[in-house]
Each structure stands twice: as C-alpha cells, then as structure tokens.
C-alpha cells in the first residue's frame, strides 16, 4: 500500500467528515431555505411609494428617469430660448447668493440635524446650460459657478469636470459644435480657459439654451431608536447674470423645470423667477440637477433573509469544530494528521467553500424570487431601475454576501475550537452578528458606523449595491461593502489564529 499525504487529501478527508453527518447537510440545505424564505417574507411585506411623486407635485421626492433610465433629480429655474444647430452662449455670473444654512431644525419633539452632501451635483449653483428641451430628465450639458466648490462642467447627471476654484464673479461659455459641447471659463471675458468637452447622450439639432439657478433642498436627519426620519426643506439661491451674448437674439423665457407647483403658481414662487434690468438678469431658483437615487437599496432589501441563513451556517460551523471534542474525536483526527495547523486550515477551507456556495445559492435564489415581488410593490422605475444579474454591483453584492456568510461560518469554527463548547460558541458568534445590528438601530445618527467597522454585523453591508448612507435605519448601510467584508475577513483571521494557537498549545 502506498500511503501519501497531501493537503488535497486532507481537504478530501475534512469534506468527507462534513458531508457524512446528515444533520449538518440538512442544516446547510436549511440555510438556503431560511435565506430565501425570509427574503420572500420580507419582500412581500415591503412597499414603497417613492414613485407616487414622479409627476413632481412634490419636487423634493421627485425621481425622474435620466437619459439612460437612471433615477435623477432635475429641477431648477431656467431662463432659456430655443436654438438650432451650432451655438455659443457667453454670460458673466456677477454674483451668487445661496440661502444661509440652518444647522438643525426642530420638528415636533424631534431634533433634526443638517446632512451635508459634498457631491458637486448637490451645490447651489448659477450657470449656463444646453438641454434637450425642458422635460425633466432630458440630456444636457452645463458649466456653472457653485457657492463653495468653484467652477464645474457637468452633463447628463453624472458627468462632472472641475474647473477653477473661483468663488467670485466669473465668465462662463458653452460652445456647441454638432454633438459635442465645450465649456470655458474666464476671469475677465477676454482670456478663456477650457474646462472640458462633453458629448451628451441625446442632443437634437434644436435645443434649449440659457442660464439657470439651482439650490438643492436642505436635508435634515434624525435616526436612532429603531427608525430614521429624513426631512427636506426647499432652499433658494439668487444669482445675477449680465453680459449675456448669444449669436441669435431671441426672447428669454423663465421656467421652473421639474416642478409642477411653480407652473401652477405662474413661476412666482416655489421654483423661482427672473427679472431683467439693463441687460442684467436677476434669477432666483431652487432644485437639484444630478443623480438622485433613493437610499433604500432594493437588492439589499431582497437579500434580507441572509440573516436567517447565517444562523444555520453558524450552527454548522461551530459544530464542525466542537463535535471533534465531544467524544475525543480530535485525538483520532490529530493521530491521523499530527500537523494541527493543516487540519485547521483544511477545516476552514472546506467549511468556507461549502458555506460560500450555500450562501451564493441562497443569495441568488433570494434575488431571483424576491425582486419580482418587490417590483409589484412599488420598487419600479424611475426611482428603482430593475436590478439585473448582469449588473456589476449586483454580482458584487451576491458574491460578497456569500463571502460574508462563509466568513461568519469560519468565525464560528474558530470560536468553536477556542471554546470547545457548542452552545457557548454558537451564542457568542450569533451575538457578534445580531447585537450590533440591534444596538446600531437604536444608537442615534451616525454613531453605529463604528460598530459596523468593528463587529461581524458590518458584513451586512455586503448586500448593498448603493453607496453608504447614514439616512437609513439599518446601520449596515453606513459602511461600504468592501469595508464590510474586510471586517468579517479580519474576524475570521483572528478567530482562526487564536484557534491555531490554542491547538498548538493545548493537549488534544
């Protein structure tokens, strides 16, 4: 007989151990069922009304579809006229006065604090624009002076180029040549500097051209105690434009874009207004032009059942370790393989891989089954574009969610080796996941972020496809998915490291 030892054979041995206890196999299948089951249950109880305002009767919660169908905000006060073919518009922004900020407001008994948004799309701005008509969400390109972030050129709700850092008076120019638009700025109207070149998705030969003012609503947040409330208040900015030069000399019209209310009020309030005196135009406007997606994450919502599947995986992970100690089986194991570190590594790899696959099946199953339910309950365009298994962010969320589940199972294994006691190890691992979630729901504002960065609960962040936000009740939305999986990987490494140290140090 030829007896050969190799790590691959050790993996096969540990896999045989795992698959040959039918109770564990049933629990692993149960993890899939629990994950998908809870996801479906949660999805069928989850409704959203965010699309009820798609007519922009309330501009603050109005989501419109952008040129590529993505949800955007598109409201501002536009002084414009129609031009056909190539055109050049030059203006001087003489001044821009944003509304003073209120740091906090009190609504009823609730103290709400201002949420700063550093995005260049979320700044009060005065600028010039070429746009495919006045329909909210249509293609555009613009250059603008912002109140705090200098000059920018932007287009189609996601293109952004930083110009100078100037905050004072500035000359701006847009030149259309066929499908391309070039933005310029100048201190004096004589020496011009190019900012950028854009090719908006859809720019017909006849477009609206003009100058505008926008001022994003101030967002106020109160979260903690298990919930989160977000309030938004309209703000207005006022700007003075002069030296307006456009090749053709048509009549300027003022329109509040993306605001039903202002049209009803004839432009006098709500959206904004403009007045002209000796070639100088004073424009007041409010609104935002840029990407605007609800913080609610449809994919994360569809994967909520992961937390149930996780409990089953923790049980298997812990028992896979502690069962070795229950009857002294660990002696048989170490008599067969005296190199204990290799045994632990093989166990971790077998358990991790199995849990990853179980997690992946659970996550993909949840996604496929729960998304259609959510779409029946309001999670539709424009606020919620249909997530697809082909989206990079969805693939990332599903793979990282599976990795999160695998990581937690491996933490269970490590703690099981350390404690040699099933009930204690299962309890501790479960608490490490669940307690920070509960505490994080209760703790106010962004303080739970640190819990997410330090405990296994942070792994829940892997489910999100959207950027981190502190506006949601669920604390795991506060950190990004890579940070989340990093926290879990660190825990797994520490648990295995301590387990390895104990295995070497202690008698079997």
């Amino acid at each position, binding site marked *: *007989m*030829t*007896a*050969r*030892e*190799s790590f691959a*054979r*050790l993996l*096969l*041995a*540990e896999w*045989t*151990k795992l698959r*040959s*206890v*039918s*109770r*564990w196999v049933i629990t692993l299948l149960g993890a899939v069922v629990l994950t998908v089951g809870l996801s479906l249950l949660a999805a069928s109880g989850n409704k959203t009304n965010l699309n009820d305002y798609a007519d922009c009767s309330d501009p603050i919660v109005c989501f419109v579809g952008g040129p590529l169908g993505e949800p955007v905000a598109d409201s501002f006060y536009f002084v414009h006229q129609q031009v056909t073919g190539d055109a050049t518009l030059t203006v001087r922004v003489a001044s821009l006065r944003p509304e003073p900020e209120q740091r906090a407001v009190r609504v009823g008994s609730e103290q709400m604090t201002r949420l700063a948004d550093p995005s260049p799309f979320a700044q009060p701005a005065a600028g010039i624009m070429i746009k495919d008509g006045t329909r909210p969400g249509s293609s555009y390109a613009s250059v603008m002076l912002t109140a705090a972030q200098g000059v920018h050129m932007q287009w189609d709700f996601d293109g952004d180029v930083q110009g100078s850092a100037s905050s004072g008076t500035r000359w701006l120019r847009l030149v259309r040549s066929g499908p391309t638009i070039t933005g310029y700025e100048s201190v004096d109207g004589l020496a011009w500097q190019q900012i950028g070149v854009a090719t908006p998705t859809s720019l017909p030969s006849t477009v609206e051209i003009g100058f505008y003012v926008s001022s994003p609503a101030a967002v106020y947040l109160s979260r903690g105690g298990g919930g989160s409330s977000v309030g938004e208040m309209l703000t207005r900015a006022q700007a003075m434009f002069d030296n307006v030069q456009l090749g053709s000399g048509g009549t300027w019209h003022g329109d509040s874009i993306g605001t039903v209310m202002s049209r009803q009020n004839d432009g006098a309030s709500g959206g904004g207004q403009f007045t002209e005196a000796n070639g100088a135009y004073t424009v007041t406007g409010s609104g935002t032009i840029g990407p605007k997606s609800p913080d609610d994450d449809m994919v994360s919502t569809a994967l909520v059942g992961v937390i149930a599947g996780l409990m089953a995986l923790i049980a298997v992970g812990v028992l896979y370790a502690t*069962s070795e100690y229950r*009857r*002294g*089986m660990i*002696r*048989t*194991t*170490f*008599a*067969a*393989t*005296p*190199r204990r570190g290799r045994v632990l590594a093989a166990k971790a790899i077998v358990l991790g891989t199995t849990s990853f696959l179980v997690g992946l099946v659970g996550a993909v199953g949840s996604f496929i089954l729960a998304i259609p339910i959510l779409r029946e309950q309001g999670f539709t365009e424009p606020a919620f574009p249909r997530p697809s298994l082909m989206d990079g962010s969805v693939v990332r969320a599903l793979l990282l969610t599976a990795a999160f589940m695998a990581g937690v199972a491996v933490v269970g294994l490590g703690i099981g080796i350390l404690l040699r006691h099933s009930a204690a190890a299962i309890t501790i691992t479960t608490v490490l996941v669940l307690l920070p979630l509960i505490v994080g729901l209760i703790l106010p504002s962004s303080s739970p972020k640190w819990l997410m960065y330090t405990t296994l609960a942070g792994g829940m962040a892997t489910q999100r496809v959207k950027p981190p936000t502190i506006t949601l009740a669920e604390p795991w939305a506060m950190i990004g998915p890579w940070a989340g999986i990093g926290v879990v990987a660190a825990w797994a490494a520490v648990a295995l490291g301590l387990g390895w140290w104990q295995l070497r140090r202690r*008698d*079997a």
Partner: protein
Amino acid sequence: MEPTIEVRELCKRYRTTLAVDRLSFTVRAGEVTGFVGPNGAGKSTTMRLILGLDAPDGGQTLVNGRPYRSLRTPLAQVGALLDASAVHPGRRARDHLLWLAYSNGIGKRRVSDVLDQVGLATVARRRAGGFSLGMQQRLGIAAALLGDPPVLMFDEPVNGLDPDGIVWVRGLMKSLAAEGRAVLVSSHLMGELEDTAEHLIVIGRGRLIADTSVDKLLAAASKDRVEVTTRQRAEATTALANAGAKVAVAGAETVVVEGLPGDRVSALLTEAGISFSELRRHRASLEEAYMDLTRGAIEYAPEVEGSAR
C-alpha cells in the same frame, strides 16, 4: 528497521499530579506486550504521549525511531485504538473509516477490507451512534488496522466485548504479533492478558514497576511454594507451621506452603500421619503476580525488576 515503540524518561504532569514519572520501556516487534496497571496508573496518558496528542514535560517517545509528530502518514506506521466511542454518532461506520483513509492517502478498497476483517461489513452503512459498545470496539480496531501499520496500540480493547469478541480480539493480537508487528495492549486486569501477552510492562502511579516476560514474572511470583490437598487441613497446617513454614489456606482442602521444599513437606506430613491426596508445585496466576507487584506500587515501594531477557 524493526518496528518499535520506545519510551524514554517520559514525564507528564497535570497541574499537581505527576501522571507519568520518568517512564522508560521499549515495545518490540513480533510479540504482544501487555501494558498493565491499575486505573489511573498512567497507561492512557502514556499512549496519548506516544501518539503526540499530549506534549510531554520531559523525556521523549519514538515510534519506529521517529517522534510521532514528525510522521507524515502516521496511520501507515502506527495504528491506535484509544477510545472506541470517539466516533461522531451521526456518521456511518464506513464514512468514519473513509475520512481517516483519505487523510493518509489510503485507498477506498482498504476500508472495505478492514470492515470485513473486523466483521462490520454488514453494518458499514449504519450510523455509529447506534452501535453497541462491542461494535464500537470493532470499528475502533478497524481504524487502527486501516493503514496496515507495523506498530499497533490498543487501549483496553476488550472492554464491552462479548466472550466471542474477546476470543476474537485475543486471536487478532496474537496473529498481528506473529506477522512480526509490535503490539502494545493495555489493560487494568492482568487476567485479560493471561493468554495473550508474552511480555509485560507494569506501571503504577506513572512509574515503571516491571518490564519482564510473562514466564519470568510467573516464576518469580510462584517462588518455592508447594500446594497440598488434604482432608486434614487443620492438622497439616499445624504440623507444617511448627516446622517453620508459612502456611496459607487456599481452599477447603488446600493449603499453600512457603519456606519448605516439596520433599520436606511430603516427609513431614507422612511423619505426622496426615494423609494427602496431592502435592504439587504452586504456580501463581498472573493476577496474583500482578497483585504482588502493584501492592508495592500503592505503598510507594516499587520493586523494579530489570528487563532481563
């Protein structure tokens, strides 16, 4: 090289108790070595130390000349049965042997072979949790045989076996030794080893008491005693005691005489007119010899016999 287990100056301390105290012995190939001592004498601890499961506080153990922990496919070198119940109750017998085989690169065929050999082939697909103690012992023995190793260690292998099983285990041990393997079998009952072991290592309180062949041990324990069967037990006792012998009652009609040669006993009894039906050299049982030895150990006066052979 010849398969062996070597234990040298081995020490193991658990908190305040010294479980193994400078223990040295060698298990040789081709014979069954009994490893005997009262419960708690340190037999199982010594076996765990040999298998590298516990770390010694002093000394070392070698298997086939190498420390166990340095072996890469130990199952092919040493087969061990430590605790027959150390099987996951939810795992089928065959799967238990299968993972062991995989871990040391042993083929699947061998699993079926050892299941046949220990008589578990028909229950191979049953869960070990439903096994009787005897079936568990057989499964443990199958695991020890899996790698066809030249060295075997069995800790109390007949525990829980029925008489058929005991006979089978004894036969197996002897045949394994006859194949040239080194076989170490522990027991707390000397009688269990009576017909099996050829060599004995007796320990008490972690220390070596005797390392000797069974024949020598029995001869020494028998001393120069003579066993007399007579209907006149009382008279015989008095007559022999008066002549300076130590006389012990061994049965209703039997006394054991120590301190007088057989012909002298015969002469004395005839002289006193005491009739006896039988007079023979007393042969001590292994149990008796063991009791003599371990009594000493319990009183902290180990009488160590050199391993002369």
